[in-house]
């Protein structure tokens, strides 16, 4: 597994992702649909984490009387 540069490594990772999820056998437009759906789901998760996790952590710490 010798990769000459980062680009090759990323191409390899993308190939792994295609094989593991089974998307490799689909046509390109189906791949795009799945990738965009997955990407938007992950983007929403990240956004929700960014907005809500600090608030929840602060509330939890207040509840356990660590921070007043």
């Amino acid at each position, binding site marked *: *597994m010798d990769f000459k540069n980062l680009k090759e490594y990323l191409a390899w990772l993308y190939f792994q992702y295609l*094989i593991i999820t089974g998307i490799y056998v689909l046509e390109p437009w189906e791949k795009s649909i799945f990738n965009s759906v997955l990407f938007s789901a992950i983007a929403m998760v990240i956004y929700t984490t960014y907005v809500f996790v600090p608030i929840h952590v602060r509330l939890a710490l207040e509840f356990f009387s660590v921070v007043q």
Partner: protein
Amino acid sequence: CKNGPGTGVANSLPRHEPFEQAPMYVAVMTYLGYGLVTLFGYFRDFLRAVGLEKCHVAQERSEQKDFVPLYQDFENFYNRNLYMRVRDNWNRPICSLPGPVFDLMERISDDYNWTFRFTGRTIPNVINVGSYNYLGFAENNVDFLKTVAEKTQEYGVGVCSTRQEIANLSLHQELEQLVANFLGLESSMAFGMGFATNSMNIPALVGKGCLILSDELNHTSLILGARLSGATIRVFKHNNMHSLEKMLREAICSGQPRTHRPWKKILIMVEGIYSMEGSVVRLPEILALKKKYKAYLYLDEAHSIGAVGPTGRGVTELFNVNAADVDIMMGTFTKSFGACGGYIAGKKVLVDYIRRHSHSAIYATAMSPPVTEQVIRAMKCIMGQDGGDEGIRRVRQLAENTRYFRARLKEMGFIIYGNDDSPVVPILLYMPAKVVAFAREMLRRKIGVVVVGFPATPITEARARFCLSAAHTRPMLDQVRLLRPLRLHNCGCFLSMPITISQR
């Protein structure tokens, strides 16, 4: 003598036959892959139904829409949405003889495998690890094929009749005598087609009121023959002697289903080497069970005749048992002898009965003379009767290739099924996209493999199957295993190596 055949003492080396389970995450990912592609299959079916996409497969006409649907079952769904996407990996046309290297016709598809067209070019010198060419007899060496040419000139190519009518050539008698000598049995009979040897002869041997105990993973020809015969079929777990013994005891104690009369015959059907797993039958144990419970044994040596055993005599030689203990020995000439056809061998009484009562013997066309002579010359070569040691050299070369290849693959960390002596090497790939990528990438690197998925194997155990040959040289085997583009999980190592593709 103590160490000769017939002592029935199995080889003292422990037979290592693991059927490793894959790690849990591999099974999860396999189901995930199938699930996603199935979802997309439903989506595409919806598009076709609505009319947004042209439907390439057969469809019912609008007048038939009120009737029972024809194409809605799972098999058709699988065919339309999974198989069609990837079917460029199967049925590849070959334009040379299937030796250790061969030429493929290059074909490409413009509409995602619905139709193909040939570019007119060939892909030359692809290493062949898919053909059943165990001893390398699929060759076009002029010296070796001299007798075949002579016999073709003498007898022609077509026989124009069946064995029982007027096509019983002296060549056929010679072949049958040779097969009987090769196996060390009294008599044998040869048929024109290997599949038909099983499916047409089992009905002649058993009928209603008999019991067939067949292994879980038996070939379709055996299953078809068993069903055609009308006997009761019970299936025991693969190579599992406890399961077989339990069934034998139950069969003898309770007899036939409603009347409880004793079974007329109990026939145990097993294969020498199972072609999808590469596992070898446990012959000494089955023989002991057969003698204890007075059953009969039908051994299908399609893949093991010529390919295992120190002199290529099959599993009876591998386990050092007397071939006369097996009641019906069946085999094919397709795999190790480079011809086509099958044989059944055993006691003279049995073979004479089959000559009179088998459908294949009475109605099917006899073996063609060049094919018969090819089997004769291949068998003489293996037995050493042609005056050289070419045959025994090939048998030893195959054994060496098998051991080398299997050992190296295990070292690299693949999950491989089967016995260490069997030249059939299935590598488990599990995920559907992985088998497809494997076949395509191997072809890009000029290696032709056979990959198998559902429905020939269980849905989570898709595999690639390598068939080694005595004609493969060490550099070829190294090329196959080192240019391997996709490495697999090593279930022993927690640093699991995900699959990789070398961009060389």
